[in-house]
């Protein structure tokens, strides 16, 4: 099967940063190194053949026991070309930082905060990286696979 336009252009432009691509069930996917993520996102947004102007979703998947352990997953949509792509950036447990893409799509602001909240991935350059769904004082990152399902958290707030 032919690689789609997006994946072909990406591989041409960033031959060193692309670890692999696939097209499972028709979803274009590129697995990339995290160092170049901001440049890749800028390219995807601004190249006239791509124009991925929507950042639809950003999340993290924890592959416990694998190295690199985490994947930051971006789902992009191009309104002018009516196309979708998924970018997966590999983040090892030893270095949990990745560049923020808030300067590329402002929508990334809350999505990155949520990813930080749930998985502890640090987005370098994010203007306001703090917990969003959970509260300050929550211990750990609950969507990691090694976070116990029924773990109790210390009580917060005024003591009755």
């Amino acid at each position, binding site marked *: 099967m032919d690689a789609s336009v997006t994946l072909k252009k990406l591989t041409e432009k960033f031959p060193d940063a692309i670890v692999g691509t696939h097209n499972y069930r028709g979803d274009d996917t590129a697995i990339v190194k995290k160092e170049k993520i901001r440049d890749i996102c800028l390219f995807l947004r601004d190249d006239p053949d791509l124009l991925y*102007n929507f950042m639809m979703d950003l999340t993290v998947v924890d592959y416990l026991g694998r190295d690199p352990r985490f994947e930051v997953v971006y789902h992009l949509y191009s309104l002018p070309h009516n196309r979708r792509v*998924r970018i997966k950036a590999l983040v090892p447990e030893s270095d949990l930082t990745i560049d923020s893409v808030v300067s590329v799509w402002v929508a990334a602001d809350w999505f990155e905060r949520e990813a930080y909240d749930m998985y502890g991935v640090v987005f370098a350059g994010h203007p306001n990286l703090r917990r969003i769904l959970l509260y300050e004082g929550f211990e750990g990152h609950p*969507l990691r696979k090694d976070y116990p399902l029924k773990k109790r958290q210390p009580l917060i707030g005024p003591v009755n």
Partner: protein
Amino acid sequence: MSEISKDLHTEHMVINMGPSHPVTHGTVKFLATLDGETIVDLDVEIGYLHRGFEKMCENSTWQQVIPYTDRLNYVSPLINNTGYALAVEKLLGIDVPERCKYLRVIACELSRLSDHLTNVAAAGLELGAFTAFLYFVEARELVWDLIESLCGARVTVNYVRIGGLKNDLPERFEEKVRHVFKEVRRLWVDVDKLLTKNRIFIDRVRGVGAISAEEAIAYGFTGPCLRACGVPYDVRKAQPYLVYDRMDFEVPIGETGDNYDKYLVRMEEIQQSMRIVEQALAQMPDGPINVRLPQVRMEPKEKIYSRIDSLIYHFKTVVEGIKPPPGEVYLAVEGGNGELGFYLVSDGSGKPYKCRVRPPCFALTAAMPRLVKGRLLADIVPTFDMINMIGGECDR
């Protein structure tokens, strides 16, 4: 004037709205920094309804996730059901029968009706239009009666199954739809007369919460709020799923993206949803509603009690869950508020390895500070109404 104000000692005041406040019909907290009545800065705090949806899904079988999806956007649960089922079916690589697709379209559009009716009703209520609220809640009750006759529940419907549906249409459903839509259209005209040209309503919503198309796209707006800015993006048209490509409907758009346009877009979409339901009912073929794959969709009880192979499949799907091949998919449907996406990762076991929901109102709520900065404190109310933040979906 300037001489006087120079001497006036003014300082910013921080006002706390919520998390339990009459106008924040979703548990959310606003911290507004005010200069007089003008909003200088707004901090939105969400998470009060966080229940760990993803963690629960990762510890349930694929079928057990469906009731959880009811509780995402609890005003349009059938769309969430359908979106999740479609995503799992994409992961499995299966296609459902024709009749099932039509039934899902009908279910989705009834849900969208209830979503938009609730939103417009609540927006009217919070701006003092109590009559409009009562009219549209009556219309919503009628739509919920339809949904109840379809699946036995009004809010937590749990109707769609992976590879099919819980049941077929009840008897005389078309007749009921005709009756209900006649009433809804009558109420729609009443509300239209009450609100659309109402001076008080227009003064509160027109020009408030406006945003340009480029900025809305950058903020990740989808759904009625994006269409109000003049961008005709609708997942049902852009990437049709089910049988939306066979339906004749229009995608209404606005011009300025202000709250009045969002209201108008929603009012028109109510009409379009009713059109789609009528067309789907007219075109719907007879036939099965479930795929005939016993390892995905349970067989009828008579077969399970009489055939050993059906019994084994039943046991395995209930105890171990259905097992999609390892892989990942993203599937988007048009929810009540915009693009509702499901990103599923399977490791080949009976439980999702990852079950991510892309909630449309999450991106919309994130833009609240941008929409109200520089406006008056009272403008938070209509702007937040038209965002239609649903706590269950935003906080998961």
